[in-house]
């Protein structure tokens, strides 16, 4: 989402489009990136329950990946994983 100029904003920052937080990429805040090891994962579904940002992608009761647009890198998923299938890496490694 390209950022708006000051002339383009609503007065007082009023949000007139409900539910638009989806288009705000909180993933930009991340300093540590969770890396998912697909082969080690047992699809126990603990990480999607614990993720505070709904950033674990799930399809048909299987984990399919991580939504890096919204993951803030808190590391709860890595911490909760019984199979050590998620590892936290420094974001700087990917930029």
């Amino acid at each position: 989402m390209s950022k708006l100029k000051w002339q383009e904003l609503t007065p007082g920052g009023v949000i007139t489009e409900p539910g638009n937080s989806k288009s705000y990429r909180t993933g930009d805040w991340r300093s540590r990136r969770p890396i998912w090891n697909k082969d080690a994962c047992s699809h126990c579904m603990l990480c999607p329950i614990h993720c505070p940002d709904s950033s674990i992608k799930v399809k048909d009761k299987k984990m399919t990946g991580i939504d890096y647009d919204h993951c803030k890198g808190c590391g709860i998923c890595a911490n909760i994983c019984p199979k050590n299938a998620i590892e936290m890496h420094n974001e700087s490694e990917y930029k």
Partner: protein
Amino acid sequence: MPTFAQKTQSKCTTKANINKGSAVSKTVAKTGTGAVAEAMRQINPDVVAAYPITPQTAIVEEFSSFAANGKVKTEMITVESEHSAMSACIGASAAGARVMTATSSAGLALMWEVLYVAAGCRLPIVMPMVNRALSAPLNIHCDHSDSMGARDAGWIQLYSENSQEAYDNVIQAVRIAEHSDVRLPVMVMLDGFITSHAIERFDMIDDKTTQAFVSEFKPFSPLLDTDKPSTHGPFDLFDYYFEHRRSQAEAMKKSKQVILDVAKEYEKLTGRKYDLYKSYQLEDAEVAVVVLSSTAGTAVSVVDKLRDEGIKAGLMVPRVIRPFPAEEYAKALTHVKAVSVMDRSDSFNAEGAPLYTELTAAMYQSGGRPVMSNYIFGLGGRDVHPSDIEKVYRDTLDNAHNGKVKKAVNYLGVRGDE
């Protein structure tokens, strides 16, 4: 013979204040707080949330009786503090209501945090503010420390010399605040006790005309519009906060023209002229005093006395402090040899008081540079006499002759030789 107040009515015609407007008008005798309460009754706001504080109390007290007697349809919210009063005003305004409150001194200080919220959310709340000193020592009388401290809170600030101006400013404030170019809250100042509690005559326009003038409030994306849901006051980070502040600054910039436009329209109704400032004998003045609010009336009598002696004395009375019309104020004073700014508050910056420092800064950017001095006076309701103001003019004359100030910052009327 016209009163001082009438003489200093905008741009200072010396003619008596004869109503030439289209509105039906009647002359009444009321206190300043009574005049403000009448203006509020005529505006008939949807919500008033307020907490009592001397000397403002009488405004909301009288207005409450209007509400209790069915003279207005206002929802009165009695709250436990001024912080809550302003918070309730913010909520009601965001919900889409036309909202007013009133306060003084410590009440304004307690609102501090939420004053900025009202301005940042761009909510057009109108608040009569009766000027009173701040503690400590505890004092209930007039000075401008309260509103001057709040001058950077993002509110438009209008100062009134007397009941008439307080009444007129409150009505105009509604239109200024709600204008789509502005959408900012407005404070209307009147001097505690001197104006708030003295009975004066003033002209009131009829209810119907006032209602038509303020017209219907059109809020921006109100919370109660459930067909178009919106969020007010969201969290803002380093990527957008700055842009929102920049657009707030632009609204304040644009408000100057809106203040003038609203004044023009109001003049058609009432015959009373309003501008960014008013002046008396300033056009050909060699020395000038700048002073806010009720002291202007006293200063006019001193100008008359000095003019009789052949001294070219002039007076400037700013009405608008936020936005600060630096260009217009500098232009009004640029031809004067020496200017003394009388401030009824101190900045405690170990230098000059607010009006002096801002006017001096304004003059720096202009062509002419009169020598400028500052007189801090009247703190905590200390009377200022014609002889005090005359002393300021005589000092200013010396400064004009010497081409430099003897002393830049002075305390006027304090015991112990400053």
